[in-house]
């Protein structure tokens, strides 16, 4: 290892992370600038090159994200999300508690397979509409949707960007997530739902002023293009099916996602410019640039240094280490973006593995911490920020102090449940 190269690459990486966390400059801009600086300095100091930088980009992660983004971008304008919310409203017959469980469940299931942000962006406005029609406060529903979309996202490989990163770094399949993550998330989800039911007991016990009006919402009219919606859903279900068995067929998840996107595009033939506009390019650029920076660290020999540092830590009890990891990552994710945290910790866990620790359970600890931690504060996840912004347009805005009383307990309970289950089932990992 070249100490000068290692120091400079660490300075660039952590300097960029600090700028990203300070939120003074847009995270994608920081990442692009940081990654280019890493390549230029790497060339000058002879530890990094253009070829090495391109090799460092994990295109299978980007492909998986892009494929899912294209599918969601196509599904979004069909009105399918509104359709589900309206069905929930009718099924609830205007009873707030039933509506709470139904909307909560829909959000969880959608965010298991689709991007959390998209799920919330599409479900929250209809939720406000339904609440206004009923004459009740949308607040419990909005907070619950954000919290449960974060929770649901932890369950699957494609549910949350940190999971995509962890899956790719650790070579975990979709089925691995179903076996190891889904059961813990399922228990956490039930706990979260009933905890929120209790925390919002006062709001949910209010009688709606006009419960009958929701029965006059017509779900059929929410679907602008029923045929398109049906086709995309068929493709999406096919993709999910392939996700379940991709490891048996030796297909990379990115091929499943991009293959599904290609099938849907061919079948529906939408206006490609409209679809492309809805893809979150800034997220993909952010990921790509972070990969380039981490590649710089690797080539400067920083990761080997981490492995050496970790030799001491490798003797720590892995169960205890995992539980500590859940809480530390959760605390960090509650205040800053969980994607850079995950990217920064992946080499550390790899280092521990090479130093001799059995790190398989630690990947799950990282996923739980990054996923559940986002519930802790009003800025913990993008979903939280979106529902807060939307609620500011209603008569009952979500405040930081309200989030402390509703979101923080959810995060603590989720991390506690995850820690207990993690400790119990650790030996099966």
């Amino acid at each position, binding site marked *: 290892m070249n100490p000068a190269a290692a120091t400079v690459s660490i300075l660039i990486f952590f300097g960029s992370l600090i700028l990203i966390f300070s939120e003074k400059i847009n995270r994608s801009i920081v990442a692009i600038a940081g990654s280019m600086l890493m390549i230029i300095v790497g060339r000058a100091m002879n530890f990094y090159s253009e070829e090495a930088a391109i090799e460092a980009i994990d295109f299978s992660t980007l492909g998986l994200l892009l494929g899912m983004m294209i599918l969601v971008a196509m599904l979004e304008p069909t009105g399918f999300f*509104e359709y589900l919310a309206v069905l929930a409203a009718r099924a609830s017959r205007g009873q707030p508690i039933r509506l709470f469980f139904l909307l909560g469940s829909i959000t969880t299931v959608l965010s298991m397979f689709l991007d959390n942000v998209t799920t919330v962006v599409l479900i929250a*406005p209809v939720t406000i509409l339904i609440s206004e029609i009923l004459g009740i406060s949308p607040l419990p529903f909005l907070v619950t949707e954000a919290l449960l979309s974060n929770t649901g996202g932890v369950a699957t490989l494609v549910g949350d960007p940190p999971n995509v990163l962890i899956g790719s770094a650790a070579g975990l399949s979709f089925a691995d997530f179903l076996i190891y993550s889904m059961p813990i998330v399922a228990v956490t989800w039930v706990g979260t739902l009933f905890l929120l039911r209790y925390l919002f007991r006062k709001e949910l016990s209010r009688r709606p*002023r006009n419960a009958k009006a929701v029965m006059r919402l017509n779900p059929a009219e929410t679907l602008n293009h029923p045929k398109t919606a049906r086709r995309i859903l068929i493709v999406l279900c096919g993709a999910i099916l392939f996700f379940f068995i991709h490891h048996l067929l030796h297909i990379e998840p990115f091929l499943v996602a991009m293959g599904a996107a290609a099938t849907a595009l061919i079948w529906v033939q939408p206006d490609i410019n409209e679809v492309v506009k809805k893809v979150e390019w800034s997220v993909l650029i952010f990921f790509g640039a972070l990969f380039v920076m981490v590649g710089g660290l690797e080539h400067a020999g920083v990761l080997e240094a981490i492995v050496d540092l970790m030799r001491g830590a490798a003797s720590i009890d892995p169960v205890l280490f995992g539980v500590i990891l859940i809480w530390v990552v959760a605390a960090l994710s509650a205040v800053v973006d969980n994607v850079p945290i995950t990217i920064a910790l992946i080499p550390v866990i790899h280092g521990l593995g090479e130093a001799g620790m059995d790190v398989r359970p630690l990947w799950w600890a990282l996923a739980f911490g990054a996923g559940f931690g986002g519930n802790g504060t009003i800025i913990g996840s993008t979903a939280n920020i979106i529902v807060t912004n939307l609620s500011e347009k209603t008569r009952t805005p979500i405040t930081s102090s309200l989030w402390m009383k509703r979101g923080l307990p959810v995060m603590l309970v989720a991390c506690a449940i995850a820690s207990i289950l993690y400790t119990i089932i650790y030996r099966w990992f």
Partner: protein
Amino acid sequence: MIISKHMKRNVVSIHATASVREAAAIFVKKHIGLLPVVDDDDKPIGIVSLKDLLSLELPDFVSFIADVDFVHDFGAVETTRPPARVLDKSVKSLVKPAITVEEEDGLLRAYALMLQHDLHDIVVISKNGRLSGIASRVDIGTAILSAWEEVD
């Protein structure tokens, strides 16, 4: 064709110190869609539109949703009234900057400004900046059309 020949001169306005409640009462009494807000010198400092007042009752959430055709009954929203604290606020809380034209300005300039800013009525001011009249799209549009009668 200049605007001052086709505008309404008998303009109702409200002073900047009035409340939202007082403004709403004038809209109801005079059956109007736009109310200029003026200072002590009768100079317009802005406008309040019927649309802005109605947004207090039909909140922004309607604009979040691309289509509302599936909503056949607005339920509790129909009977929701803005809270007293909102009605007792100064009318300034709803004021938007006034797009104005001068009395000597042409009809097409006025009409183009109304299209650009999505206005149904436009405020006309005198040379010294005082409120002098108000013209609707119908006033301006029919005035323009009237010239067509001279075409052979």
